[in-house]
């Protein structure tokens, strides 16, 4: 069936997922539904302890069996040990047909590929996959479906019960014996625990895994004991040196710097750039560079930002340090400066649901003025692809790309005309991740294109359009 961006979605997939094709951004506005609640096992007896000796024991206590759905969060980025640790144990127990529902999977998870090949894992739900998992899925080794959802879309699917998580595993940098989890204070700090919050609320069993057990109460808890069934202490939940490897370092690539400069010029000349504006960027080199150049323009023009959202990196946290922004809303920290910034009282951690779930009573992304994004490919209809490489290999993650682009008043996508010899601006993207109706402006090294749907509300000065 043809969807709103002109792609033919196979009937087979519609039947398997029970979903409708994409009808446009606001198709579900005003839609009513009842949320999915978790099966809850009460802890009343005060003699009980939530501490369990090992991953193996906790899997037994949670009643692991074939066909279950287990969930993970990706705040430890490329330094994550949790997914491999849990999946290795599940594999050893001979369990089959597992669905992994992760907020994202990266190269750190290459070791689970054999479990895909032998049928331990048969379905994968994630925001994207990289490395060998991407190759395995692209080569058809996954027996079931691979579903790639945005960060907001993942929360939606958990809240509606479209995805029912049997056991959620939460890597907690610090945790007490009763399950109060925090993203800071331990030896493998990741700052926020935003993506795990929906899991904690809606999974039947919730397991906190920590490498830093602290005395009760570990307050203020980012994830409350009221949601946690068991606590397991392990030697290490992640490699601190690799946790903050999501973001590109400030780029020195002249082409990216030039595009960042075009972007800043566009932003400051647009009607939304005024005191009290709001802003988010992705973590591509050009996006980060544009935050740095925007900070200079804000200082020069004496304009103050009300709030910044992210996916946070050092340049965003510098805005807070330099008092150019009132507050930051944080879903994940890409570098150690951002993790450190969590301690600032104007740096608020928000859940992935608050951030972007389209099926709640309003998400933060809807209040954004600007979002600066990157893309692997953008086509002439402004559709963006951020997940599938031009050779058809699944090789990226969408994160909040579609959510923020749909929510923000002005969604700017930065992409060069050519990436190597692959055209990033093309007739038709390989896969539509973000529909063209969400994208307002595309910035390339050769100039700026404004979506014809918006040209009447944008002015552009001194820029080649």
């Amino acid at each position, binding site marked *: 069936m043809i969807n709103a961006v002109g792609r033919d979605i196979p009937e087979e997939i519609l039947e398997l997922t029970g979903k409708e094709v994409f009808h446009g951004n606001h198709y579900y506005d005003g839609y009513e539904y009842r949320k999915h609640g978790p099966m809850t096992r009460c802890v009343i007896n005060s003699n009980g302890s939530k501490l369990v000796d090992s991953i193996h024991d906790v899997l037994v206590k949670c009643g692991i069996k074939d066909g279950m759905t287990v969930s993970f969060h990706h705040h430890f980025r490329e330094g994550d040990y949790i997914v491999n640790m849990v999946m290795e144990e599940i594999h050893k127990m001979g369990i089959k047909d597992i669905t992994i529902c992760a907020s994202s999977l990266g190269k750190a998870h290459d070791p689970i590929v054999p479990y895909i090949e032998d049928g331990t894992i048969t379905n994968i739900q994630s925001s994207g996959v990289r490395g060998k998992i991407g190759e395995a899925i692209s080569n058809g080794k996954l027996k079931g479906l691979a579903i790639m959802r945005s960060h907001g879309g993942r929360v939606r699917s958990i809240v509606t019960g479209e995805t029912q998580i049997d056991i959620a595993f939460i890597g907690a940098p610090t945790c007490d014996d009763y399950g109060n989890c925090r993203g800071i204070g331990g030896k493998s700090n990741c700052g926020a625990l935003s993506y795990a919050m929906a899991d904690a609320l809606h999974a039947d069993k919730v397991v906190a895994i920590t490498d830093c057990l602290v005395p009760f109460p570990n307050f203020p808890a980012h994830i409350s004991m009221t949601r946690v069934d068991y606590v397991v202490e392990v030697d290490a939940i992640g490699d601190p040196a690799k946790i903050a490897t999501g973001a590109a370092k400030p780029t020195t690539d002249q082409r990216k710097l030039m595009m960042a400069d075009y972007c800043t010029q566009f932003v400051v000349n647009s009607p939304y750039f005024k005191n009290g504006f709001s802003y988010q960027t992705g973590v591509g080199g050009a996006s980060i560079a544009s935050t740095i150049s925007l900070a200079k323009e804000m200082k020069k023009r004496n304009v103050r930002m009300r709030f910044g959202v992210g996916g946070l990196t050092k340049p965003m946290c510098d805005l807070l340090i330099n008092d150019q922004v009132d507050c930051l809303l944080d879903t994940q920290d890409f570098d150690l400066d951002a993790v450190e910034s969590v301690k600032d009282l104007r740096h608020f951690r928000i859940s992935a649901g608050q951030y972007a779930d389209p099926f709640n009573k309003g998400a933060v992304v809807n209040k954004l003025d600007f979002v600066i994004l990157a893309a692997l490919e953008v086509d002439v209809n402004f559709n963006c692809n951020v997940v599938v490489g*031009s*050779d*058809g290999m699944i090789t990226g993650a969408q994160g909040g790309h579609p959510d923020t682009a749909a929510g923000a008043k002005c969604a700017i996508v930065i992409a060069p005309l*050519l*990436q*190597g*010899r*692959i055209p990033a601006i093309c007739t038709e993207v390989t896969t539509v991740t973000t529909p063209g109706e969400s994208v307002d402006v595309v910035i390339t090294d050769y100039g700026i294109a404004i979506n014809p749907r918006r040209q009447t509300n944008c002015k552009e000065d001194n820029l080649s359009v």
Partner: protein
Amino acid sequence: MEIKKPAMAGTLESSDCQVTVEAGEGKIDLELNSAVINQFGNQIRKVTFETLERLGVKDVKITIVDKGALDCTIKARIEGAVYRSLEQIEHLPWGGAIR
């Protein structure tokens, strides 16, 4: 043209390619490693063979590590490597074998 000694041209920067030529074993022996081999592998091979033919090179071991270079870049790097291996840096046949 006979390849006398190993020579190299190009870099491993994005949009460039690094070409190495060495004395061959009686034929053209191409080893291609490319970031875009799935989309452009055949095109890169075609450009390589055409360029070598124009230069009159029939006996060479040529290695290309491509980082998404355009055809014109690949051509220029092959020409550069071949003439470096001949140690010919002046009186190059612009408009002749080099186009």
